[in-house]
């Protein structure tokens, strides 16, 4: 399952507006108040609501740039939820790479499908703090998520059987067994 990222626009704090040398004093005050408001909104994570989803390639390629920022990341939960008590690990694969997400175990309680050969895992969208080298987890690149939601439920993948290949295999196998027996008898 491939879920492509939507680009690299994010919920990073807005920069301070450039100084307006020509403008009157109240305008400067307005800019400062507006900037402070934007910063506070960004800091409490509300801005992520408007943000696009990061791709794993964006995060890995520009890990230094996004280190410590709040990000939204979406991917298929693969293989296992690794329960470590109050918190758990889940790896989310967006089609290019999988990234480890560390979050409260309660947030993953509804995750039922985990991607493997027979299963398409639940697609989770997480919001959290991105670390290029997490000091809490031995320097791993990870996301500490504070919100997790299932955007697409997983399902069992029906196995497609190639009947032609199955029949050819059976014939070939019988043929080889017969050949070996004949050859052994002759020698």
């Amino acid at each position: 399952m491939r879920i492509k990222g939507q680009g690299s626009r994010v919920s990073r704090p807005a920069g301070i507006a450039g100084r307006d040398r020509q403008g009157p004093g109240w305008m400067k005050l307005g800019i400062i108040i507006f900037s402070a408001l934007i910063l506070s909104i960004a800091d409490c994570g509300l801005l992520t609501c408007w943000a696009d989803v990061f791709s794993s390639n964006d995060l890995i390629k520009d890990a230094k740039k996004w280190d410590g920022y709040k990000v939204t990341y979406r991917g298929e939960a693969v293989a296992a939820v690794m329960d470590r008590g109050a918190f758990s690990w889940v790896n989310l694969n967006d089609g290019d790479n999988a990234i480890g997400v560390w979050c409260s175990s309660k947030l993953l309680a509804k995750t039922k499908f985990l991607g493997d050969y027979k299963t398409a895992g639940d697609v989770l969208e997480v919001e959290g703090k991105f670390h290029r080298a997490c000091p809490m987890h031995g320097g791993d690149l990870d996301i500490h998520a504070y919100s997790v939601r299932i955007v697409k439920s997983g399902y069992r993948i029906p196995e497609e059987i190639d009947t032609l290949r199955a029949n050819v295999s059976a014939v070939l196998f019988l043929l080889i067994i017969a050949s070996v027996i004949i050859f052994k008898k002759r020698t």
Partner: protein
Amino acid sequence: MLSVVEGDQMILRPDLDDYKIIGHYLGKVVIGVGILMLVPLAIAFGYSETQPAIDYLFSMSITLMLGYLLTIACHTKEDLNTMHAMAVASLAWLGAMFVSAMPLYLSGHYNSYLDSCFESMSGYATTGLTLANNLDHMSNAHNFWRHFIMFLGGQGIVVIALTFLFKGTAGAFKIYAGEARDEKILPNVIETARFIWLVSLVYLVIGTVALAVSAVIGGLEPGKAMFDSICVFMAAWDTGGFTPQSQNILFYHNFSFEMISLVIMFLGSINFALHYAAWTGNRRELFRNIEISTFSVSIAIVLSITAWGVAAQKVYANGTSFFGKTFFHLVSAHTGTGYSTIYPAQFVNEWGQLAMTGIVFAMAIGGSVCSTTGAIKLLRMGVIFKALRQDIKKLMIPDTAVLVQTIHHIKDLILEDKHVRSAALILLAYIVTYSIGTVAGMLYGYPLSEASFESVSATANVGLSCGITIPSMPNGLKIVYILQMWAGRLEFMAILVLGAMIFATFRGKR
């Protein structure tokens, strides 16, 4: 009367019987690979994976058919001489690569047959570079096969086929040397091969249990923990580097799992003769052996270079993360394993050029001879260093004095020119091969640092990647890396003999 004959004049043209002997034994090895496909077939049945089971039945049938056709067409009762053994060793690895790639290709996880051949050679050569797509959805049978061929390659596929599946002949065991396993730990090769298997199986049990316990404590359910632990053990012990998940060892987010795999990597890179010494109570050997002392010096130097480079980038906030990441990757590189807990792009973007250089040096040197590692190897580095020291000393002592340089490798040996020549030739061959791959990478437009990193990783059978090895990489570069992995694993001699045989076919004397 002695006569002097030029080398070229002594090359005899191989006749039909020579080719029949080679074809016959090559066929036996191919049959051996076909029989070994029963293992993933059983895994497929065990996990109720129907389509993979069909893939293995199909591949096994084709492989057995090819093998039997070859043995029948080249039927002979002649035994192998050294030239035949070398040719069989080198051709068998190509043959095994080709047939083992079949089920991988049928899995649908590879873009082309070339990609699955790359994966197969990477497995047999215990490299660990991968071109698999969507690895997280690969069936257990196919995933097990990737790791199993790594285990077989590490132990030596030709030796396995001939010791376990067929009655070995005296000549057949000359192939043992052709697979770069030229040391006799015990008086004869059969006993040596059996000892290697005994050591490997004992560690397989201990290592798998240790990894599985760690994985279960880390939150994996027992079935998945057991499957992954067997796979990770096989790849770590044989210093391969494949893992069942796309994130490599990072998937587990488990420090103890990383440390256990680090110990297994280290044990896998140690000479089996040293394992024998330790098993028989001769623990002093561990402190006196030239390979261990060379390893200590080498790891101290490359760790300093890498740590300096990583520290300069200020990536890690605390000492534990910094030392953990640096040391893990350095041991992974030095032992030729290629396990990683960072993404390939992070080597380039986060670790920087100096740290990458340290890793390249570690990969280029490698582990011990008579282990499962590739690269130049510690014994040769130690011998060359001792020879250099001896030459410098000679310049500083009176002309009339005689200087004797000894080395300790299982027993005390006087360092002779033949030892130095042999080590220097292999060193030269590796440097040339590293360079060829680097130039090839640069011709395809990659920067020097990245091209050299990937080239050394392929030749030294390491498997760390800085991002070049991906399914969309140029086909020409895939072929170059396949040849590098093949040559690096067999340590050139068998391939050079095969080349000489082909040359003699056209230019040799009747």
